């Protein structure tokens, strides 16, 4: 027997193992390739054959490919045979070889099942091979992956730490949402494993689990937080890692950890942990400027003291982030900036290229907010531009962007142009090209004083070979020509030259991108043909046969603009009464246009044939001596204005237009229901356009134009009508005689041997010099007049940017926006960001329902209802994903609100007064104090979080309103926090429950600090105890409500054995523990020492919810004090209002509109007079007390929505007039509606 085993293993040892495979491949490949390549020269990758990564001759040399492909397919066949055997060692060997082949680019997913088999081997050796293969080739789409769940769970709980470790490592690579959900609990247990080796792996993998299964974040977070203080440095650093990564994505949820991290930062000596934490602070400071203030000092100390460059670099980076966040509120941190810039300069000057690179990288961050301090180091940056390292040059280019001014733009661009000529490699040249254009066009061509120069730069750039950015140059040409009116004449002349030499530009196929500039050139020449010197010549250039080799869209533009030119020429000729010439032009067109009619491009073809017919018609008319020029040019009358790219999106929806309404009733097809398009504004656009009247009449147009002018006049950004600083300077009395030097373009600029743009540099210098002289003269005169013989003014270069007058009267036309455009800039959020799901508040205490799924038998119900300790009602697991999602959403909303309350207190407390509990390094006393002014200045930049709160469908307007309100609210909370800090900490509120929270997202609106609202109302009170209660419905169970009762012991006795009993009615019953009769009470699960309060929850089952009802009940308890104990009782009357059956449910306006239209809702309304409260607060009150959410709000009118636990929809339209409020309601049940409205009336009457 033993011998047989030996034989088996000996047999196996002659199986090909990994080493043999590698050796075989090398024998078949590398020798051959080397030999052949020596013979045949150049080699390229072979695409035709399976061996993707091997090299063959330009046309695949079949023999070689064959040799290798054959060998590998032979190996794969062997592997397949081996996989069929029972012996696990053979299988593992096969899988090991497959892993190698995978690296070479072979798909091995067909062996997924075998890989799982090897993973489940009992021996560590094989298991490791299996997990490695799985980590290399499994992904979310692998279908057999769900088979691994139990195996992995088994391995995770294996006694051998290496089995567990290898499973964790493997899992980290292929974890799916399902695996994450099923294994989250197991992994969480491992976080407290005895071996640090396992602990650190478990901590690290939690990040992956969070990503795939965001619900696990809250339950697991407390333990993760614990691990920050793990005795093992590896585990600690893993925890820092995970939290930092989480915080980087959603920093605002982790602000409350700042004190903890601060403590770590000041105590840790581990540079890696320090780097991580410092990076994290960099992400947090934008959210909380006070944190930045607190950080500056220790960071500056670190910068001074550390010797580790990496730490220094990260410190500088974070200080920069702090400075950026403070830049608005704090005027004076120039010392810190100076320090940073100084340190960075040292880095940049270092001989180590890596440090140089990083220095430049950090410098570019400073540049954004403190350009002045960086500009001082211009020399250094320009020097780096000459560096041999491309990465460094690119970084230096980035910096240049912020260093240009009117004064040095030409000089810098000239330098860049020489680089363009020298650059090898198209990537870098393309980068240069885009940078040149970026630099010149930044902030509305702010730095360009001479647009002729810019146009000639653009024209020079067209001579670049093989650039990918032809369209960019074209776009710039178009933009400048359209927006700078003064330049059009010059631009047109340049463009016509370009068209004339089109063969140069479009000669080789390589330049396919650069020929885009011809598109621009043709359009400019056509559109502004009145400026053309020799239109006829340009026309002929555009009709050359060569043009038909251009891409279709360019041909189309050619055709269109040929007609524009034609119109211009006709007009010219007819004015000169040169009928002969006019007819010749027509003839030219008739002859040449047919070449476009044959174009393969549909657009070009269609336009050409249209225009050909038109021209033929004109020819007929001309033959009859009819003047046609007027009519032909009428085709192109009017001027085109630039329109902002986002303009279309920002057109507000006109009143009364319902974009969601059907234009035609949809076909009663079931399909259309399924694929209901999401109502995103863009998608609606075409429909929107259709509904518009086709042409606005003349008067209307005129009126609009007038309005626009008015608006532009008031718009500070509209350069056209508001004088620029330079112009104001010119207009100032006494200086208006300074001539603006106009460069006459008819003066030939053709200095041989010099590119055009250089001439402009010279000319510009001369011009400025003249200007300066003149100014000097003037100044001198003035001074001499003032104090004769005094110190003379030096004629050194002291001109500042503002002194340079542009050569042309620059008329940069801003882009037009539609009237009443809504200024919202939040259209760039990616809704598919996986990290958004992790945007979860972590400060809220865990609810019972938030548990990680524990492994159970398949058929057991998971208790996910918000059950309380005292009630053991088992309910069916709701499998509907929709509900689950909804619940999740609600939860998050609730969390957000809750967080603000609690975090506000904790963090404020830390930020404002206390020093961190255990800072080993003594901190300067100033550290502890906070300038009083700061709190007022905190209107924290909440942009980011708001963006995330936003759902796609939400109304931008509403968003605008929320912005100020939330900030104010925050401030308010902070004030409260401040007040409370000298007293004792406020008592913790009762645990929050669903529906208790004010809705935040399209929910409640807040503007002014609201009066404290509590939904708890007094139930009963005596000398021993005070009871307050609140009733909440839950959407999960359609006939249950939860009554939360806060019991407060008001006596000096100890209250125990509390029991609550209620006299059930037909309609409402108390849910009692199983097996108890209707007369038994329900015990309260706690005892109350004197002065303590606690909350208990009781579930009631309600049959009909349309009417309010009252239940009588009794609380019995034993009060015990020194003198003995007495049995006491307290009667109460529970009031179930109809409101309490409503559950805050978000509703989008489209769904809301649909609901109203459906017509099966009954209507009712109430009106309340004498209300002085603001509408904002009013809505908040309704939202809070009656569980509504705001769907939409327009001025003093809002639509609101809520849903009962039994699924009745309740829609409200709340209108506020002078001193009165009217509420119109629609609901699927009229009784419910009238009751709700009655209750609402009562609430409102109290306002």
């Amino acid at each position, binding site marked *: 027997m033993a011998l*047989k085993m*030996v034989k088996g*293993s000996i047999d196996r040892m002659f199986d*090909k193992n990994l080493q*043999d495979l590698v050796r075989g491949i*090398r024998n078949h490949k590398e020798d051959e390739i080397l030999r052949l390549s020596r013979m045949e020269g150049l080699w390229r990758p072979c695409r035709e054959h399976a061996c993707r990564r091997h090299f063959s001759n330009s046309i695949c040399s079949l023999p070689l490919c064959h040799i290798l492909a054959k060998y590998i397919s032979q190996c794969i066949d062997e592997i397949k045979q081996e996989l069929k055997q029972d012996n696990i060692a053979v299988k593992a060997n096969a899988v090991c070889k497959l892993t190698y082949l995978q690296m070479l680019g072979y798909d091995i997913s067909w062996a997924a099942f075998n890989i799982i088999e090897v993973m489940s081997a009992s021996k560590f050796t094989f298991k*490791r091979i299996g997990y490695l293969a799985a980590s290399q080739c499994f992904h979310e789409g692998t279908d057999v992956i769900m088979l691994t769940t139990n195996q992995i769970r088994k391995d995770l709980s294996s006694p051998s730490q290496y089995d567990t470790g290898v499973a*964790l490592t493997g899992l980290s690579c292929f*974890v799916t949402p399902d695996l994450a959900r099923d294994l989250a609990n197991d992994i969480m247990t491992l976080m407290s494993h005895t071996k640090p080796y396992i602990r650190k792996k478990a901590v690290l993998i939690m990040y992956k689990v969070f990503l795939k299964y965001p619900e696990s974040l809250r339950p697991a977070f407390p333990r993760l937080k614990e691990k920050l203080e793990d005795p093992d440095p590896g585990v600690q650093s893993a925890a820092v890692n995970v939290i930092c990564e989480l915080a980087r994505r959603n920093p605002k949820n982790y602000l409350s950890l700042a004190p903890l991290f601060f403590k770590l930062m000041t105590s840790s000596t581990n540079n890696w942990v320090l780097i991580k934490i410092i990076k994290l602070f960099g992400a947090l400071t934008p959210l909380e400027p006070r944190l930045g203030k607190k950080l500056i000092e220790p960071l500056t100390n670190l910068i001074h003291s550390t010797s580790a460059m990496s730490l220094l670099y990260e410190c500088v980076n974070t200080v920069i982030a702090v400075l950026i966040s403070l830049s608005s509120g704090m005027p004076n941190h120039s010392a810190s900036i100076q320090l940073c810039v100084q340190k960075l300069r040292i880095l940049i000057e270092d001989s180590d290229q890596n440090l140089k690179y990083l220095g430049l990288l950090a410098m570019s961050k400073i540049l954004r907010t403190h350009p002045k301090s960086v500009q001082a180091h211009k020399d250094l940056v320009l020097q780096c531009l000459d560096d041999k390292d491309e990465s460094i040059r690119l970084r230096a280019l980035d910096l240049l962007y912020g260093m240009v001014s009117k004064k040095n733009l030409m000089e810098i661009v000239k330098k860049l142009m020489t680089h363009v000529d020298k650059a090898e490699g198209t990537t870098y040249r393309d980068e240069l090209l885009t940078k040149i254009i970026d630099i010149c066009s930044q902030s509305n061509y702010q730095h360009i004083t001479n647009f002729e120069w810019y146009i000639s730069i653009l024209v020079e750039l067209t001579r670049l070979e093989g650039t990918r950015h032809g369209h960019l140059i074209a776009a710039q040409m178009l933009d400048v020509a359209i927006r700078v009116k003064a330049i059009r004449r010059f631009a047109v002349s340049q463009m016509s030259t370009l068209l004339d030499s089109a063969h140069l530009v479009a000669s080789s196929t390589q330049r396919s991108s650069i020929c885009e500039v011809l598109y621009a050139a043709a359009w400019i020449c056509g559109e502004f043909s009145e400026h053309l010197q020799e239109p006829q010549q340009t026309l002929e250039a555009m009709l050359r046969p060569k043009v038909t080799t251009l891409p279709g869209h360019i041909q189309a533009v050619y055709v269109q603009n040929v007609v524009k030119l034609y119109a211009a020429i006709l007009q010219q000729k007819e004015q000169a009464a040169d009928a002969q010439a006019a007819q010749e032009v027509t003839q030219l067109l008739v002859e040449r246009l047919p070449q476009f009619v044959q174009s393969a491009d549909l657009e070009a073809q269609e336009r050409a044939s249209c225009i050909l017919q038109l021209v033929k018609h004109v020819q007929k008319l001309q033959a009859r001596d009819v003047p046609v020029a007027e009519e032909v040019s009428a085709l192109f009358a009017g001027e085109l204005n630039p329109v902002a790219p986002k303009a279309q999106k920002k057109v507000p929806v006109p009143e009364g237009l319902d974009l969601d309404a059907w234009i035609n009733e949809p076909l009663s097809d079931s399909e259309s229901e399924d694929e209901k398009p999401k109502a995103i504004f863009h998608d609606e656009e075409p429909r929107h356009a259709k509904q518009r009247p086709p042409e606005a009449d003349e008067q209307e147009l005129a009126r609009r134009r007038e309005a626009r002018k008015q608006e532009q006049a008031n718009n500070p950004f509209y350069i056209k009508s508001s004088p620029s600083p330079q112009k104001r300077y010119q207009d100032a009395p006494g200086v208006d005689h300074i001539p603006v030097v106009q460069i006459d373009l008819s003066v030939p600029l053709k200095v041989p041997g010099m590119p055009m743009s250089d001439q402009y540099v010279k000319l510009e210098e001369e011009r400025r010099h003249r200007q300066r002289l003149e100014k000097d003269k003037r100044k001198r005169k003035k001074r001499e007049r003032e104090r004769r013989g005094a110190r003379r003014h030096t004629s050194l270069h002291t001109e500042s940017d503002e002194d340079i007058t542009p050569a042309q009267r620059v008329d940069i036309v801003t882009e037009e926006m539609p009237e009443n455009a809504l200024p919202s800039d939040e259209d760039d959020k990616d809704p598919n960001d996986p990290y958004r799901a992790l945007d979860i508040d972590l400060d809220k205490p865990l609810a019972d329902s938030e548990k990680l799924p524990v492994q159970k038998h398949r058929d057991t119900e998971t208790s996910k209802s918000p059950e309380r300790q005292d009630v053991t009602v088992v309910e069916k697991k709701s499998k509907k994903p929709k509900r689950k999602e909804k619940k999740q959403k609600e939860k998050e909303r609730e969390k957000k609100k809750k967080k603000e309350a609690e975090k506000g207190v904790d963090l404020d407390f830390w930020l404002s007064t206390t020093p961190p509990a255990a800072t080993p390094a003594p901190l300067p006393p100033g550290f502890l104090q906070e300038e009083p002014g700061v709190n007022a200045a905190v209107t924290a930049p909440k942009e980011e979080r708001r963006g995330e709160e936003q759902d796609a469908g939400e109304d931008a307007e509403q968003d605008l309103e929320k912005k100020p309100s939330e900030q104010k609210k925050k401030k308010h909370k902070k004030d409260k926090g401040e007040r409370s800090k000298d007293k004792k900490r406020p008592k913790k509120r009762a645990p929050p429950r669903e529906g208790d929270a004010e809705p935040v997202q399209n929910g409640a609106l807040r503007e002014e600090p609201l009066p404290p609202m509590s939904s708890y109302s007094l139930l009963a009170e005596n000398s021993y105890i005070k009871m307050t209660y609140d009733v909440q419905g839950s959407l999960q169970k359609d006939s249950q409500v939860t009554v939360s009762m806060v019991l407060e012991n008001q006596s000096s006795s100890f209250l125990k054995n509390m029991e609550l009993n209620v006299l059930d009615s037909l309609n409402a019953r108390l849910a009692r523990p199983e097996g108890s009769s209707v007369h038994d009470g329900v015990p309260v699960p706690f005892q109350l020492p004197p002065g303590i309060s606690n909350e208990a929850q009781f579930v009631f089952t309600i049959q009909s919810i349309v009417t309010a009802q009252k239940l009588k009940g009794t609380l019995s308890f034993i009060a015990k004090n020194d003198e003995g104990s007495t049995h006491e009782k307290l009667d109460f009357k529970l009031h179930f209002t109809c409101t309490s059956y409503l559950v805050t449910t978000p509703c989008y306006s489209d769904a809301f509109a649909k609901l109203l239209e459906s017509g099966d809702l009954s209507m009712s309304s109430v009106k309340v007079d004498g209300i002085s409260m603001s509408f904002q607060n009013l809505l908040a009150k309704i939202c809070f007390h009656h569980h509504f959410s705001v769907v939409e709000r327009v001025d003093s009118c809002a639509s609101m929505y809520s849903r009962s636990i039994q699924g009745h929809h309740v829609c409200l339209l709340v209108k506020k007039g002078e001193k009165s409020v009217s509420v119109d309601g629609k609901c699927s049940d009229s009784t419910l509606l009238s009751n709700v409205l009655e209750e609402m009336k009562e609430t409102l009457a109290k306002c």
Partner: protein
Amino acid sequence: MLRAPAWSCFRFPPRRPRPGPALSKPCPAAPGGARARACAGGGGWGRIASEIPRRGSCARPRPGPQLPPGRPGSAMIKAILIFNNHGKPRLSKFYQPYSEDTQQQIIRETFHLVSKRDENVCNFLEGGLLIGGSDNKLIYRHYATLYFVFCVDSSESELGILDLIQVFVETLDKCFENVCELDLIFHVDKVHNILAEMVMGGMVLETNMNEIVTQIDAQNKLEKSEAGLAGAPARAVSAVKNMNLPEIPRNINIGDISIKVPNLPSFK
């Protein structure tokens, strides 16, 4: 000998002096015939780890107190690639799912970007189009015949990753004893195992070399003990294979069991 660059934020443990051939020379004294033979087969053989990092700064004395070895906090490492001077992949580990074709493309592109760079330029590179886009950086080091490339996202500490590469290579050197490209070629699985102790799911797990080596040794021991009876002959055979004997017995007879030795053309 190996020395941490001046900006290094952790210290390498003292190294034992190692006798051995000078760097970048072929390794004639390498143990085992296979190694020598494979060298002739065209693979690389320069010793990897023995090459001193090329930064000029490494010679600079480091002032200030030395800090204990630490662990890099990591954000996300997207991929780790090792390929040789000809672009042949020696190890590829992707922490984001890509199809095999894309993986090969990424390797090719990365090689293309990295290989054309001079020796004395910085180790950071932007512009990998395939992997990740603008947020990501390639951070690489070139040792003898091999490129070690880490593709990381923007939140990563650049210098930290450079150190991590150094630790990786030193660990390989310790585990393979005078590591050279051939070790990576023939034992890619072992390299994966070592890497798994350092980086997990795209996050840095451990950077203390001693700790990594301890765990690897323990796992190897476990593996050996599992092989037991069956392991011994297998090891023997692999030794035989590596010996490249001109004549291998065609038949092995042990008692009544006769084992036919297959033709081994591929061993040649």
